């Protein structure tokens, strides 16, 4: 791949990849590392990967795998029995709530969704991949993607409500143990 073609590839995909990485990694610096690492792998893996039509799905898949590889497996793996209920009806005012929030608050709410639901949820909102591609990237059946999506949306709505509630209170006590009295 020529430098020009590589530049075009970066320009086409680095922004949605960064948004996906930020939702996963939560920190800007870590998200940048993930995106850079993904393109680095693309640039060094050889010609075998260079099917332009599959580049986007490959990049998202690789970024997700790099994220999984780079962080410790959560010992508290969520079992299916632990999954929260989905399918809760959405209230009309919830749409207004999102519209009035700034982007950083919405992203913060998204980042608070459990990781198992956060990845499919973010890919859903980004709309860069088809369901088949999302399923391949996450290595789960499409039905599981849809199930996680439903439950992820429920968690996101709860998180958005919490964010809004937090914004309403005037002063927030720094909760926790009582301060030691200085000698």
């Amino acid at each position, binding site marked *: 791949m020529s430098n020009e073609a590589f*530049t075009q590839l970066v320009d086409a995909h680095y922004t949605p990849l960064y948004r996906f990485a930020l939702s996963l990694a939560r920190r800007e610096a870590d998200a940048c590392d993930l995106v*850079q690492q993904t393109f*680095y792998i693309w640039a060094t893996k050889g010609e075998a990967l260079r099917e332009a039509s599959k580049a986007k799905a490959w990049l998202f898949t690789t970024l997700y795998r790099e994220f999984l590889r780079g962080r410790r497996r959560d010992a508290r793996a969520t079992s299916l029995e632990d999954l929260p209920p989905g399918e809760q009806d959405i209230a009309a005012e919830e749409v207004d709530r999102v519209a009035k929030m700034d*982007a950083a608050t919405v992203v*913060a709410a*998204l980042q608070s969704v459990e990781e198992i639901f956060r990845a499919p949820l973010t890919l859903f909102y980004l709309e860069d991949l088809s*369901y088949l591609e999302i399923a391949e990237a996450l290595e789960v059946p499409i039905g599981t993607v*849809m199930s996680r999506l*439903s439950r992820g949306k429920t968690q996101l709505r709860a998180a958005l409500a919490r964010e809004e509630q937090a914004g309403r209170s005037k002063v927030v006590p720094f909760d926790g143990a009582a301060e030691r009295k200085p000698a």
Partner: protein
Amino acid sequence: MTNNEAKFILNAYRPSGRDADFPAMATALAQARNDPALGAWFAREQAHGAAVAAKLREIAPPAGLREAILTGARMSGPAAAPRRAWWTQPGWLAMAASVAVLLSLAAWWRLAPVRGGTLEEFAVNFVDRGFRLQKHSADVGELKAWLNEQHRPLPEALPAKFAELRALGCRTVDFQGREISLTCFERGGKEFHVFVARRDFVPDGLESAAPRFLERGKFAAATWTDAKNNYVVVSDAGMDAVKRLF
């Protein structure tokens, strides 16, 4: 197909229409058109999804990421010819030499004390130099308990908007021989670092309970006081983001 089954499928429908040919989606869409209650639910669901997606699209990569990707790839990518193992390429060898020099400088730099005549100057310089957290937790209660064990000052109360931030961790810091604390928060990938010093420890006197804002290079900061402590929050998220905390 029951309405609950239709909702499960429609939940995965995206406004672009790219999923319309997904198995069973056409059936569920038709059902939503014919059932007013299901149709109303679907409309709200789509509006909510569109609102979240629009906010997500507002997030822009930080300046310099694109250039970092392209520069990094030029050093290791396929354009380099003749192809050699990446670690033997002159660029990488030069980079390795540079890194060695930088590491030496960094080691020296890390040993040097952070400068700053006032708490806010010190705080900005401390963040700018980089540091490691000693205690990692998203639970502010846990962080406070840890700081308490270290006999460090604790925030009595933080402005309301801090509740929208996610705690990352904390550490102890020494400023002019005094023991102060540093608690770090994050929101949308941007970090906010809160330094706390007991009022009697900082003779230069940050006397205002109302926040005072200042900019130092790429950092924005705010200082304020309460009955016991002086506070400084430092962030590279920009002055608007810092002001929104108050």
